[in-house]
């Protein structure tokens, strides 16, 4: 719905394919999960950054098209890479072809590790489907591949209002840190806090549209965090991204989770 590109003539972002900001009147929005160069059999595509970037955007395109949209309608792009030199050498060129002349708002980060150590790039998109809402408020969660993992590849928000949660950490109401040195306890506390905040907003776990999990140790998160996460969402997962980073705001924090939700 009537997109406005902000500072579209900015000399800095222009040559890099980004827009400083994009403004829309939200009607129907698509949030994708973080996508990577994974193939249908679960293995990574061969050949490093170039082929992984190509594959990543092909998979994103399938999600966007399934939602009835196109790449040109992307309003935000989030790029996570583990090897910046390889991205500049091979990844960026592979990316450019998909967007043609359009430019989304964008953030690029170098993280320590993605879900699989062989993954060099992960990308997520927010897409304005440029349609008015169809009927009442509704979330439509879907997959374009049978991946069997704990997330949906795309979530469409039809009407309603968006809720942006701060990154949630294992803090008690008095400001102290819960579960110091204990990832299971921190995971429980983080999801308790997410639940409380969603409840205060008139939402539930099922209202979650997009989730980003920032962890200091991805393997430990898989072991200790995943059971807590499954119990929280009960199968009604959001589109998700999981990355490993070197630090959070306090040294005691082992994980931080951000959620975007939507309500009527």
């Amino acid at each position: 719905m009537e997109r406005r590109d902000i500072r579209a003539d900015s000399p800095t972002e222009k040559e890099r394919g980004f827009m400083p900001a994009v403004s829309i009147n939200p009607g129907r929005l698509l949030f994708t999960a973080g996508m990577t160069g994974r193939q249908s059999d679960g293995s990574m595509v061969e050949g490093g950054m170039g082929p992984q970037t190509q594959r990543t955007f092909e998979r994103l395109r399938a999600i966007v098209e399934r939602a009835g949209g196109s790449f040109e309608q992307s309003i935000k792009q989030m790029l996570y890479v583990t090897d910046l030199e390889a991205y500049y050498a091979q990844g960026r060129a592979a990316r450019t072809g998909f967007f043609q002349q359009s430019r989304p708002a964008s953030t690029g980060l170098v993280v320590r590790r993605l879900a699989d150590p062989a993954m060099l790039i992960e990308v997520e998109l927010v897409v304005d489907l440029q349609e008015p809402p169809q009927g009442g408020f509704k979330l439509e969660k879907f997959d374009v591949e049978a991946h069997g993992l704990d997330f949906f590849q795309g979530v469409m928000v039809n009407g309603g209002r968006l809720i942006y949660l701060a990154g949630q950490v294992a803090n008690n109401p008095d400001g102290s840190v819960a579960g110091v040195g204990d990832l299971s306890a921190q995971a429980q506390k983080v999801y308790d806090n997410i639940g409380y905040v969603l409840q205060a907003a008139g939402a539930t776990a099922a209202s979650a549209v997009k989730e980003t999990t920032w962890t200091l140790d991805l393997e430990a998160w898989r072991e200790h965090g995943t059971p807590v996460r499954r119990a929280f969402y009960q199968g009604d997962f959001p589109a998700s991204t999981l990355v490993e980073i070197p630090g959070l705001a306090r040294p005691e924090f082992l994980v931080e989770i951000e959620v975007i939700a939507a309500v009527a």
Partner: protein
Amino acid sequence: MAHTAIVSEQAKPVANYQMATRQDSGRLVYISGQVAWDAAGNTVGRGDIRAQARQVFQNLRQVLQEAGGDLSDLLKMTTYVTRIDDYPTVVEVRQEFFPDGLPASTLIVVASLFHADWLLEVEGMAAIG
């Protein structure tokens, strides 16, 4: 204001930010990660976190103003730093730009940003109008 702060008694923020915000009306604005670029595209404050933070928050404010709003319209912001030791300085500078407190907020330490000279990057979403 096109948004409402969400307050929970059971889950409280660890600093002066909101736990969540809800967009109630207006246009939704997604803002790229802002770095310490001046208008000509030169990185300012090489090695100087305070100078970079000032530039970044100025850029963020400018983008919002050109979208017809201001920093107070932010729903959420995410601050990425490359060195956790820079965090107190970032908070200090940020305070100058947000005297009345922050929107929903996240801080993450990343391995690096997309240029070796950049020490922080801040992105956000806003509801304007």
